[in-house]
């Protein structure tokens, strides 16, 4: 299967600290790849690097990012701008804040096509309908403040997809929405990925979301990938202690009350506290001396899975 996005060995640093360290991942057409991890582990920066819109403080130290085989880092700024909105798009966590308060829904979406609204109005209306916005003819001329959060996210999705990009990066697209809306938006994303063959990278900190929608998942911890593989296999039998603990912390409706929710002890180390070994060693129940000294590589373990743990065989 040809990869739409292939990130290899991506390393990003802020003031010398590697906040993203040797991340590799790939997504194929029509596939939903989830990146999951606690807040601050480098998910958003990874996505920003793909769009080549890193904050000024962040430097790309190493690695390549290929969109349909073309290395994005090699392109000129104007060429990358040509890709944005047309071949790769991004949506974010706060849909209401991501829409210009003075632009109408229609002009916002038309902008992705680099066209004035009056020329692409029919196309925009069709797209609004496709993302499940009722009464598109009225909504197209409304401002963001007249829409609900869920509707704003649908508008964002419409403007992200109207250019028919091969890749959609969705950075916590449902975190700010309430649960029923969240499910609808996830369904919509999955449906569009299937119908249009869009490759989706879905960033989330919610294992429940991953289970709902993703085909494959990369679990990130403190800037590195801890474990990756197909969702079903990984959920059924995690091969990294961090994954196992994350899965144990998913609240289930049928489960015990919230007070006895499994919580991972300790906290994510800050960028200044990274040691030479495994970054999870300080919180891991399986830590041995080797973990503190030497970082485990992300090693294949069969069935399209890989884990970065010296002791994964102890988990079988």
């Amino acid at each position, binding site marked *: 299967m040809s990869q739409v996005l292939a990130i290899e060995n991506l390393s990003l640093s802020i003031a010398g600290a590697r906040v993203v360290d040797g991340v590799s991942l790939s997504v194929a057409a029509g596939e939903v790849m989830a990146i999951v991890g606690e807040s601050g582990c480098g998910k958003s920066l990874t996505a920003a690097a793909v769009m080549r*819109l890193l904050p000024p403080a962040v430097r790309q130290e190493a690695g390549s990012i290929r969109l349909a085989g073309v290395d994005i880092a090699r392109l000129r700024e104007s060429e990358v701008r040509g890709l944005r909105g*047309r071949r790769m798009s991004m949506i974010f966590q706060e849909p209401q*804040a*991501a829409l*210009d308060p003075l632009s109408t829904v229609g002009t916002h979406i038309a902008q992705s096509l680099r066209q004035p609204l009056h020329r692409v109005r029919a196309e925009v209306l069709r797209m609004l309908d496709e993302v499940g916005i009722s009464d598109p003819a009225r909504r197209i001329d409304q401002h963001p403040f007249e829409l609900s959060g869920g509707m704003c996210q649908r508008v964002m999705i419409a403007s992200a997809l109207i250019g028919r990009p091969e890749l959609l990066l969705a950075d916590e697209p449902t975190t700010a929405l309430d649960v029923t809306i969240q499910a609808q938006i996830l369904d919509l994303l999955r449906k569009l990925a299937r119908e249009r063959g869009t490759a989706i990278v879905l960033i989330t900190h919610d294992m429940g979301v991953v289970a709902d929608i993703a085909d494959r998942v990369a679990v990130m911890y403190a800037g590195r990938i801890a474990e990756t593989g197909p969702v079903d296999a990984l959920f059924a039998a995690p091969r990294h202690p961090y994954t196992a603990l994350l899965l144990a912390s998913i609240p289930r409706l049928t489960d015990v009350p919230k007070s006895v929710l499994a919580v991972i002890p300790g906290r994510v180390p800050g960028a200044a506290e990274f040691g030479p070994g495994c970054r999870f060693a300080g919180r891991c129940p399986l830590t041995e001396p080797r973990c503190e000294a030497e970082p485990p590589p992300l090693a294949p373990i069969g069935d399209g899975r890989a884990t970065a743990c010296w002791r994964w065989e102890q988990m079988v």
Partner: protein
Amino acid sequence: MKPRMTIGMAIVLALLAAFAIAAIAAPLLAPFDPLRQSLLLRLKPPGSLLGGRSFLLGTDDLGRDLLSRVLFGARASLLVAVVAVVLSLVVGTTLGLLAGWLRGWVATVVMRLVDTMLSIPAILLAVLTVAVLGPGLLNLVVVLGLTRWPRYTRVAYAQTLQVAELPYIRAAEMAGCGTARVMWRHILPNIAGPLMVVATSEFGLMILFEAGLSFLGLGIQPPYPSWGSIMAGGRQYIERAWWLTVFPGACLFAVVFCINVAGDWLRDQVDPRAASR
């Protein structure tokens, strides 16, 4: 979105429109030539009827009709203010936008220049420039336009810094907008509200400035009337002919007051969120 209009606001806007029309149509509305002197008609009080001619606002020390002079004076005042505001708004906003978007050394240079300009007393700067360029309508406009931009720059800069950090600016970049489009279509409209507020308060200030400079003899030159120069001429007769200072002064006050009220109203209108409340 429909602008909400109160009766008070309608009166204010109607008054401003009336002044604008008076200024534009002064040659049609003025009963007499504002420059024609008549020593027989010196310092006649308002409402005088002489030789079959009525002088609604009276006459000045050279026997010129005050109403005609005030109408033509409105022309000078409003013209100077409009051009000066537009000039300084364009210059100031452009500099502030660029400084706020590019940051770095551009911002340092621009903002130091702003600090420098703002630390020189405006009236001194104006007097110096007039001394170099010579007095006159055109020079007055140039002086005001080139000395009044820093306030816009400050506001545009601070607002751009703020707006540039907002998610929708990032989203616009993610959608493939170039720098020019982001600045023109997304940042500028979103900082326009505060800039309009500055522009309206500056507009009132420019009218006062023009009057002040003309009063000092540095602006519109006699015999051409402006509100400031009429008042300057009337100053020495203030005990015998109050109308020479009161009428142009009242016009000045009314216009500046209306502009300031209209400015507040406008600020609410340019923000659709405020209008929907």
